[in-house]
């Protein structure tokens, strides 16, 4: 099954996220990752969702249909910048501490907390690079880990902005996938 990355802009309203996510639940699709936060436009949130499925076209159209959803794109095959952040709490001893710090450095990661037998490392990169980093840390003993899930943005001048939708006060063609 193919992994799809879907980017959606939606009104920052109670229930909006719930409605969007429900469409995937209804079909029994598992959401591999989900990241939501503010976009460049006040009142508009941006969501990046990764889902494993062979057929997302229909769900993407149904996402469009939701009143809160302003724009949706399946950016899986577009050139994108993809990032994910992980916080990893690794077990350390006096013997391993230096080695772990060096490895973190190689991955451009930052040590953000140190205790007598742990270290928290902040790591940002493509999801693949984060995978890789996690594998490298595993032998030392990962005590805790949290990944944010992928966030994605299409490269170049193509924009996926909320502003144009909000400023025009509701007069934008949504669901314009076919026209």
């Amino acid at each position, binding site marked *: 099954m193919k992994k799809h990355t879907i980017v959606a802009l*939606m*009104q920052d309203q*109670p*229930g909006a996220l*719930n*409605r969007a996510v*429900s469409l995937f639940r*209804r079909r029994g699709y598992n959401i591999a990752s989900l990241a939501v936060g503010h976009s460049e436009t006040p009142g*508009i949130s941006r969501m990046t969702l990764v889902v494993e499925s062979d057929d997302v*076209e*229909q769900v993407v*159209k*149904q996402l*469009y*249909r*939701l*009143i*809160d*959803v*302003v*724009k949706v794109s399946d950016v899986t095959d577009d050139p994108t910048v993809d990032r994910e952040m992980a916080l990893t709490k690794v077990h350390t001893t006096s013997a391993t501490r230096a080695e772990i710090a060096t490895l973190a450095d190689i991955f451009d990661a930052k040590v953000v907390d140190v205790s007598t037998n742990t270290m928290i490392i902040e790591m940002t990169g493509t999801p693949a690079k984060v995978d890789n980093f996690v594998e490298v840390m595993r032998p030392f003993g990962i005590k805790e880990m949290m990944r944010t899930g992928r966030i994605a943005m299409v490269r170049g001048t193509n924009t996926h902005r*909320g502003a144009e*939708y*909000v400023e*025009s*006060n*509701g*007069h*934008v*063609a*949504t*669901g*314009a*996938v*076919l*026209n």
Partner: protein
Amino acid sequence: MSEEKTGAQIMCEALIREGVEVMFGIPGGAIMPFYFAMWEYRDQLRHVLCRHEQGAGHAAEGYARSTGKVGVCIGTSGPGATNLVTPIADAMMDSTPLVAITGQVSSAVLGKDAFQETDITGITMPITKHNYLVKRIEDLPWVFKEAFHIASTGRPGPVLIDITKDAQQARMVPDWDVKLNLPGYKPNYQGNRKQVREAIRLLMSACKPLIMVGNGVIMSGATEELRALAERTGIPVITTLHGIGAFPEDHPLSIGMPGMHGWVHVNRAIQECDVLLNIGGRFDDRVTGKASTFAPNARVIHIDIDPSEIGKNVKVTVPIVGDARMVISALLEEMPDRSELATLHSHASDWMEHIREMQATHQHKQQYIARPDVPMYLPPHDVYAALTRIVNQHGNYRIVTDVGQHQMWAAQLIDWHRPRTHITSGGAGTMGFAVPAAMGAAIAHPDETIWAICGDGGFQMTNQELATIVQEGIKNVKVAIINNGYLGMVRQWQELFENKRYSGTPLSGPDFARLAEAYGVRGITVEHTDEVADAINTAYEYDGSVVIDFRVEREVNVFPMVPQGKSIGDMITESPIV
């Protein structure tokens, strides 16, 4: 206008501003402030007290489906709200404009399992077009405005507004100067011209073209445009269950209903056609049968206002997102002159001749109406034969059907002519729809006769609304129960596919005529074919609502039939009672 109002008064004024005249509901603790305020506005806002919130919801649907206006239903929090779930889901499936208003516990105790608290916005999220939880009085004006806008525009549907008790009780000077802020909602009405021309090119190249129409044609009021399109091109027209009435069945280009209980010649025509123009239908599986085998030779043009319907079940060559009426008008505008259409016309008329031949060899409607002459029992077909004759003599009628065999017979055996005269629960198939929906339609159209055709099963789900009918003085509901002593449609499947294991389908009931009389409406029992016409005429003559209990032959099947999951090319046509 700078007077302070309660939230409940603001709700009433918002409803009046939206043009609401009647609402169907049942009060309770969390919605009491609204009922308190409603009293002051009772001259403008009629409230119909129903006997069950499901009935209130279906009544609002019947009102909406028969008028095109938004239907409004009301329930209190908790069980009042959950009782509305079925009609809300029904309205979602059939794109019925509905606003459901529910009371909610006070915001201070929200989420704390307060008495009669139910997360109704959570429950109805997947079965509403949109819903709102209102906790602040200042949100009421814009929420009502948005709710009615969303329910009635684009592809219509149900919107639920859940309002906490404290928001109803709070006071403020309402600010009615609210703008719609719906950046994510802009239905596309105007079809893309390029696609319209593409559609015409495809139609012009066809040898065996078909037009199939659904609910979208009725909702957009495209009946005249559709007729012009059919007549200009000479293309045969199919009406789906929800398309019934969009095109008069006595028109020479009308060929009838497709699908599970559609006519053989219609389904065969679909399987043979080379271009299929679907206007405002969603290729429901009851229409397509096994979708992968549907219309194997056809290139499909699909006009729908909802882009997520296009390509969902059937592969589409030319998609057009737009309102049926506007797109058909665009098709007519772009259509070449009569002379250029000559080839299409001659192909279409040869094709029509072929379809009529198929119709003559396979079952024709009349064959089902003509029953063997056995006076001892009452075949359901005799009831329909008399009904279609008598209601069309009187005119000015609508027929609401419930769900089951009687529903399919009604679709097949009654001659349908006008839009919004056939009202049924199609997408959800909700038993219990007909009596309350007929009541809603009767309130909207007091000068018409509103027939409800029910099974004995469905009638027993919501017949308590007969009490509402009496209390409201509604005189124009005439209920015909096709009483076969079974959950007939399920029994039919058991007979045909489960070796007659009638598990959970034999059904008893009270004496329906006496039950009707107990409610205060006229009750009539019919056991023989020769009493049918008299009973229907009596129902017309009687100045009040009527229930006729037609005790029909018990084990009659609806034919033709496409077994579930089979191709519409494989129909069962045999009738065991002949």
